[in-house]
C-alpha cells in the first residue's frame, strides 16, 4: 500500500523523529516501496503456522531475585548529557 505524507507524519510522531515536509515526501516514497516488498508475505498461506520469535523456540531464562552487581550509578550518570544531584535533567514536563 502507498503511504501519504500525512501517514509519515503520524509514524514520525510515534517514532519520536522530527521530519520536514521534504523529508516526509522522500520517506513516503521509500517506505511505500518497502511496504510493497513486505506485501509479498500476504500471498502465503500461514494458517496453523505458529509465529517464531526465538530460533530455538527458547523462552526467557529467569534467575533468582538477588543482587548480582555493584551499584554503578556514578559511572552511568557521568556519561549523561545533563544531570544534577543524582538525577537526569530534561526540559520542564509539568507547568
Amino acid at each position, binding site marked *: 500500500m502507498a503511504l501519504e505524507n500525512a501517514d509519515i507524519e503520524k509514524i514520525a510522531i510515534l517514532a519520536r*523523529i522530527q521530519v520536514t515536509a521534504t523529508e516526509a515526501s522522500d520517506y513516503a516514497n521509500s517506505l511505500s516501496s518497502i511496504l510493497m516488498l513486505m506485501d509479498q*508475505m500476504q500471498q*502465503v498461506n*500461514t494458517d496453523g503456522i505458529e509465529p*517464531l520469535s526465538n*530460533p530455538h523456540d527458547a523462552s*526467557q531464562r529467569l534467575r533468582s531475585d538477588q543482587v548480582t552487581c555493584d551499584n554503578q550509578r556514578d559511572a552511568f550518570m557521568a556519561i*549523561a*548529557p*545533563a544531570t544534577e544531584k543524582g538525577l537526569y535533567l530534561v526540559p520542564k514536563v509539568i507547568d
Partner: protein
Amino acid sequence: MTNKTLIQISNDLSAGIYSSREITQDIITDIKARDHQFNSFINLSEDLALEQAGAADARRAAGKAELLTGVPFAHKDLFCTQGVITTCGSKMLENFIPPYESTVGQRLLATGAVCVGKTNMDEFAMGSSNENSYFGAVKNPWDLNAVPGGSSGGSAAAVAAGLVPAATGTDTGGSIRQPASFCNLTGIKPTYGRVSRFGIVAFASSLDQAGPMCKTAADAAVMLNAMAGFDAQDSTSMQVELPDFSADLEQPLTGLKVGLPKEFFGPGLDPQVADCIMVAVKQVEALGAQIIDISMPNLELSIPAYYVIAPSEASSNLSRFDGVRYGYRCDQPQDLMDMYCRTRAEGFGTEVKRRIMVGTYALSEGYYDAYYVKAQRIRRLIKNDFVRALSQVDVIMGPVAPTAAFDLGSNTKDSVAMYLEDIYTLSANLAGIPAMSTPAGFVNGRPVGLHIMGNYFAEAKLLNIAHQYQQITDWHLQTPASNGNKGA
C-alpha cells in the same frame, strides 16, 4: 608483518621474534600510514593497546601465555569497550564512552589479546555496503571503487588490507559473511545464542550474532574459541556443550553430504559468481563429499520477513536513544517532545530513521498482525526448510551474495535494491543456524565467497570444511595489491 595470519603472529610471539609491544606499535603505525585509503577505522586506542601489549609481554615472560596473548585485533565499533569511544557509526554516539566492556571483549582481553581500535560500520549495523556510516564510506582494499560490503565493512577492509590479522564482526542479516565474501576473508556467523550479545549495541535482538573475521578458517576457530560460550548476562545465550573449534579442522571430508539448494542458483545470480561457486563445490566433492540437489522453497520470502522483523526489533531497541541518559542531545529543546524528536532527527542518519519508521509502522495498532506476526509465521516456514534440508544433508552450500562487490554509490538511491542484495544471507539469521563465507575465487579482480551453512551448533563442522577447502586452494592466501605484499 601485515599479511601474516593470526596463528603466524602467535607463533612469532612464542618464538620471541618480536614482542607484542613491537608488533602492536608496528600495526598502529601502519594503520596511521595506510588507512586513509580505506577509512576502515573510526578510532584507534593506541595508549591502551600498548598498555595491553606490555601486560601481554609480561604474561608471556611469566610463562602464562595463551594462543591469543599479545596478538593484536580490532573490534567492530558496535562492541562496547570500557573507556574507549564506541560510536556504532552514528552521530548519536559520536562521543559515547561505555562504562563497561562487552562479554566478547572481556573474553578476548582475558586471553591477553590486544585491541588496537574500533572499525567503521554501517550506522547501527544497518546496511550492506558500509556507505551508511556517519564517519564516511569504507573502501574495498581489492578495488578502491568498490564497497567492502556491510555492515562489518570496516572490520573486513582492515583485515583484507593487512592492517590487523583479525577483527570482530556482527551478523544480523549477513553483516559478517557478505563483507567477508567481498573482501576475500573467512568469516563465521555462529548459531544464535552461541556468542553472548551482552555489551554489543542491539540492532535486532532475535537475529544478532557476533563472530570473527579472519584470513583463514584456522584463525577463525582460534577467535571463536575465545568469543563463544554461555553468558548469564545474555538472556538468550544457550547453555550447550562448547567444543574446541580447532580440534576437528583436520578431519577428512569423506562421506560429507553437501546440499545445493536450487533457489540459491536462480535468476539474479551473476553467472560468473555461479561459476566460481560450482568450481568450489566440485573441489569439495573431490575431497570426498557427496553433492545432493535440494530445495529451500521459502528462500525468497526471507527478504520481506527479515525486512519486517529486523526493523521492528530495531525500532524498539533504538528507542533508548532519547537524549536523556547517554549520547547526543539536541541544542535548546523547547520541551520534552521537542528534545526527543530533534535529538533523534539530528542524531540518526537516513537509513536508520527509515528502518525505525518501517518498524514503528509494522508494530503499530492495526498492522501488528498483518506485518510482524505474519513475518514471524514465515520465519518458521524458513526454519522448517532448513530443518528438513539438514535432515538429508550435513551442510548446505551456495553463494554468499548475488554479485561480487558492487561499485561505491551504485545502490545508495534505492533502498529496496540494496535489500535484495541480502537474499542468500538473511535465511540463516531467521533460522538461527551457523553460516560462514570462505574465499572461493575472483570475478574481475573482486573476491567471491563460498557460503557454507550447517545445523545448529555445528560451527566446528563448518570450520573443518572451510579449512580442508583452504588446504587445496590458495584463494584465501591472495592479498590485494594495496597491501604492497610485504611481510608473510
